[in-house]
């Protein structure tokens, strides 16, 4: 039995499997986030329901607010597990490439917030009586890019937030303005898809912007993570 420097992909999948297994066993994150998604759907429906034409105009905003809140809940939760008995220290004290650990965490957060949106999107469509079915694919793509943007920025900041007092208040305060380009792009892009706004270059420009955001901050975070977690 000898220790060879573990490979990037091996670490990535090990951390993902570990998180998935822990999640399936406790189910706490999925349960709380699922219920939270339901509650939020009702609140948003109460807040925004109007005539059909107006509903079609406001549903992008409702979807993206839902994503923002789901994402905030998710990034806080996934890191709480690492912080509980300080297993995170053991994780980053292992020879595993630290950026692989961060990337795995980003993917977990991305999946969590996207799965909440898979629940919320059809429910909102039913409650606000907007037929999203014809444009479901593009809308989910936008939401995925948004969830990605939230994950790449929110995950490293959530890791850092354990050091601060009022972490649970601070985190949204810090992350929301940071992801504003993605939020703007998402809301506007979704309206373009639904035909309630017309941009100069359609939805493509927004997709480009969000993709660029996800890649830039994802790569930046991975690059800096080593320096971030060293005390």
């Amino acid at each position, binding site marked *: *039995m*000898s*220790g*060879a*420097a*573990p*490979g990037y992909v*091996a*670490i990535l999948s*090990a951390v993902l499997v*570990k998180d998935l*297994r*822990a*999640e399936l*066993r*406790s189910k706490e994150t999925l349960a709380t986030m699922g219920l939270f998604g339901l509650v939020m759907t009702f609140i948003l429906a109460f807040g925004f329901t109007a005539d059909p034409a107006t509903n079609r105009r406001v549903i992008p905003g409702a979807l993206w607010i839902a994503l923002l809140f789901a994402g905030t809940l998710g990034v806080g939760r996934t890191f709480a*597990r690492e912080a*509980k*008995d*300080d*297993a995170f*220290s*053991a*994780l*980053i*004290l*292992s*020879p*595993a*490439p630290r950026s692989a650990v961060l990337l795995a965490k980003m993917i977990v957060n991305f999946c969590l917030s996207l799965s909440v949106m898979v629940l919320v999107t059809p429910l909102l469509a039913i409650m606000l009586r907007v037929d999203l079915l014809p444009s479901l694919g593009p809308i989910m793509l936008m939401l995925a890019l948004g969830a990605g943007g939230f994950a790449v920025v929110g995950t490293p900041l959530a890791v850092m937030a354990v050091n601060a007092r009022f972490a649970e208040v601070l985190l949204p305060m810090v992350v929301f303005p940071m992801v504003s380009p993605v939020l703007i792009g998402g809301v506007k892009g979704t309206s373009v898809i639904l035909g309630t706004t017309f941009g100069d270059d359609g939805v493509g420009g927004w997709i480009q912007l969000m993709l660029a955001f996800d890649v830039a901050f994802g790569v930046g975070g991975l690059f800096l993570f*080593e320096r971030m977690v*060293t*005390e």
Partner: protein
Amino acid sequence: MTSAAEAGLLRVEGLGRAYDDHYALVDLDAEFPPGSVTALLGPNGAGKSTLIGILSTRQSATEGRVYFDGRRVADSASMRQRIGFVGHRTMVYSELTARENLQFFARMFGLVSPDDAIDALLDRVGLMRDKDRPVNGFSRGMSQRLTLARALLPKPSILLLDEPLTGLDQAGVRLALTLFREARDAGAVLIMASHDLVATSKLADRALILSSGRKRFEGATGEDLAAVYAECIGEAA
């Protein structure tokens, strides 16, 4: 270039760590030979945790260098490959079972087919019967036994122990000391910070005493660790 004298030796040179308003560690030169156990002693705030933190690569030094095996430790990842760490907290995942925890950390260390070693180690720390139970049902002592197994699994050449006996009962303390002796006899460098002078003196053959971030004593100690400590720090501390 690894000279014979430097093989397996952990050495720090001019090590310092500044925080914004104070130094936690000042210009520390020290050596930790292989096959030895160094007791790291000092009052609260002496810099023990900072030193262990820097050696573990969890914290960064603001001055000075760390050498291991005659080479400057620059690439932290390869250094981490050889370090085992036991801290105040259990550092295991409570939703996973004892076995799954060890399997996970084995993968983090890139260990090849670790299953037999895991079982052997679980048996050693007395968790064989509970190996498939999730850790959140464990007592503090059982979790601490598991964390010992976690640290020892990759057969580290450097074992950093920050209050490793926390939560252990008498049998647990005896077991831990036995495991540490075995690691020492295998040629590892052991550094142990603990407030339990009695247990520490059973194990340590050397001591490094710090106070206010400065070295007060370094060298071999006899049986009477407490006397050396009292001489350096004073009874009150």
